[in-house]
Each structure stands twice: as C-alpha cells, then as structure tokens.
C-alpha cells in the first residue's frame, strides 16, 4: 500500500532509510523543523538548516522517488532563548514560499514554560499573517496533557485560527479527544517506548474514528523506527479493517490536510516515474 509519513526528521537519517521506506510504499514525507540535539547558537545556524530542509532534502528524497515537504520554525526546546527565537521567526519569510514548504511547524511546548508559550504565540502570529498551516508538537510524558491543554487554550483564544488548518501531533489516549473535539487535525506518533505503539494507535482509531487523524514515525536521531507506519498498516490489516479505511488514514488524510497549503503540489504514485530525477547520489 502507498503511504505518506507526515512527520519524519530525515536530516537525521541516512539515505538508505529513504530507500527502505520507499520499498515499504512511502511516496511522500513531511519534515518539520526540530531540535538538533543541541541548541544552535545563531540565526545563521537556522538559515543553513532551512536551506538543508528546502534544498538538499527534497533532492535526496527524490533519489528514492519520494516527494519531500517541510515545515519551518524554531523548536520549543530552543524557545527559552527568546531573542534568538525572535530572530529566527523574523527570518522564516525568506524561506516560506520555497517549493515544498507546508507551513509553520513543529511549534509547541516542551516543558510548558512561560518563554515557550510566548514564542509559540509569536509563531502563531506569523502563521496568521502569512496565512499558513500550522503543525504542533505536544510535550512528552508527564508534560503532555497539561501542555496540550495550554496549546489549545492559546489557539482558541485567537479567533483567526481555523482549527481545520492546524495539526496537533503526538496525541495519545488522554489528548486525542481534546484535539478532535475542538475541530483540529491530529496525528499519532509511533515510537518504540514513548508515545504510541502501532496497536495502541489502532485502538485509538477504533475508539475515535478515522476522520482528521493520521499516523507518523517521527523518525529522528533518537530511538525511532522510520518504517513504523507500515507496522501500523499491518496491525489494522490483522484486525480485519478494510484497505480503504487504512488508506484513508495513511494516505488520503495527510493529502487532505496538506492540500490546504497554497503551494502544495503532489504527483500521485502511479505517475511518479515521471518525476524521478536524473541526478543520482553518485553525482553529488
């Protein structure tokens, strides 16, 4: 089955991973800007990162026939440096109209601090000014429920925010209802230990339905599995769910959300042969 991984940090993965996910049926990925494992020291560090996301990664993905999309922001972990965050936010418009950029993300909260909240709102302000989609990171573990509520409070307090143009990511059993009830899109991340397993994600689908929801691997430099979405597909198949329902979650829903972006262009997989680039990795 063809699928889309709507959240994966391919800058942290090797080219072989692109090849592996392509063999599993992945036809497109979207890559939010995130934390590199260390705090970057300057706005130029982010400028280089945004160039990597918008110039090199689409090319590298293309070597395996995968269409690459991205989101731009400064991650919540680095939002404690308010001055740098504001410099980065000011720089985002330089890149926002590049092909493949879907919007502002993944913004959100990490430890639910005051500075994170301020920078979150300033990202939302930018998204509203530029009429962009928003991808939201919700915190980890004990911070998730509180942080998700705080994020929804901030979004609902801004009447310009249209919930159907916002994706709240990393939802689990205790937060999926909060996001869906307010009309937001949401996504479940399939991680080996934290977040959701494929079976729990399938349980959440059975409990909350398949509208406005998707799954991702959030593959990055930490413990993660870039082929987690196929594991989820297999779990639903084993339970007897029809192929059409599975396709809706792993392919149709990401496309429906992404298509709200005015720059979004997608070539369906049955015509992908037409867009496989001629520049191969050995030519780098």
């Amino acid at each position: 089955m063809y699928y889309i991984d709507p959240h994966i940090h391919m800058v942290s993965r090797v080219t072989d991973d692109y090849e592996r996910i392509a063999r599993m049926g992945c036809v497109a990925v979207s890559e939010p800007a995130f934390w590199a494992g260390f705090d970057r020291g300057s706005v130029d560090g982010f400028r280089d990162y945004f160039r990597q996301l918008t110039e090199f990664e689409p090319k590298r993905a293309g070597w395996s026939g995968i269409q690459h999309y991205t989101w731009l922001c400064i991650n919540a972990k680095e939002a404690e440096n308010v001055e740098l965050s504001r410099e980065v936010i000011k720089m985002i418009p330089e890149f926002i109209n590049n092909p493949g950029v879907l919007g502002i993300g993944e913004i959100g909260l990490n430890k639910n601090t005051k500075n994170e909240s301020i920078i979150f709102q300033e990202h939302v302000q930018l998204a509203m000014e530029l009429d962009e989609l928003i991808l939201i990171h919700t915190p980890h573990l004990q911070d998730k429920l509180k942080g998700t509520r705080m994020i929804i409070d901030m979004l609902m307090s801004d009447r310009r925010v249209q919930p159907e143009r916002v994706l709240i990511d990393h939802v689990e059993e205790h937060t999926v209802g909060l996001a869906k009830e307010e009309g937001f899109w949401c996504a479940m991340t399939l991680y080996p230990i934290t977040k959701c397993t494929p079976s729990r994600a399938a349980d959440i689908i059975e409990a909350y339905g398949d509208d406005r929801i998707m799954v991702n691997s959030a593959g990055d430099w930490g413990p993660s599995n870039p082929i987690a979405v196929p594991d989820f597909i297999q779990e639903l198949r084993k339970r007897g769910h029809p192929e059409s329902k599975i396709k809706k979650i792993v392919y149709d829903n990401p496309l429906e959300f992404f298509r709200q972006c005015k720059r979004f262009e997608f070539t369906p997989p049955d015509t992908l042969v037409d867009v496989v680039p001629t520049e191969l990795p050995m030519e780098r």
Partner: protein
Amino acid sequence: MIAAIQTSPEVFEQTFLLIRARILEIAATLDRLDRAEAAESVRADPRFRQIQQGLEILLSDGFHRAAQIQEIFSDQYDPTWMKKYLTTGERPALSPSVPH
C-alpha cells in the same frame, strides 16, 4: 467511530499470550526492584505510587483504562495559567476580527 472488527473472543485468542508476557515482565521487574538494595527508597518515590495506581486501574472494568493511566502520569493543568504567564505586553497583538 470505527468499531473493532473482531469479536472479543477473537481479540482474546490473539492477545492472551501477549498479555501474559507483559504481566510477567512487570512482575519480574517489580521482583528485581524488591531484591535490589535500598528497595525502601523506591517505595517512597512518588513515581512508584503512580505505578501502583496504574496497576489498580488495570483491575477495573471499562474501556478507558489507557487514558486513565496516562492521566496518573500527567502533571496537573491550571486553567488560569495564561493570566499568570502572559501579560498583555508579552502577547503578540491579535486581530480577532480578521478572518482568513
């Protein structure tokens, strides 16, 4: 909502050994904690109480056990947080009447 496709007996047949294995894994881990030195200090750790509360929920009925256990391991939410965190000057100027 999509109902579970399988019947409960079918789910049970498929997951019995998995549930058994996971219960055993938890039991063995708790045994390991108790036979190691300074087990009393772990029992005094608030996180151990969270584990105990989670195990109690496993014995209850219903179909929201996972969400209930998640809430045990979650920080408290303060609905007045925004007033405490964000003064007017720190919030970006909003234009509530401007739609997309």
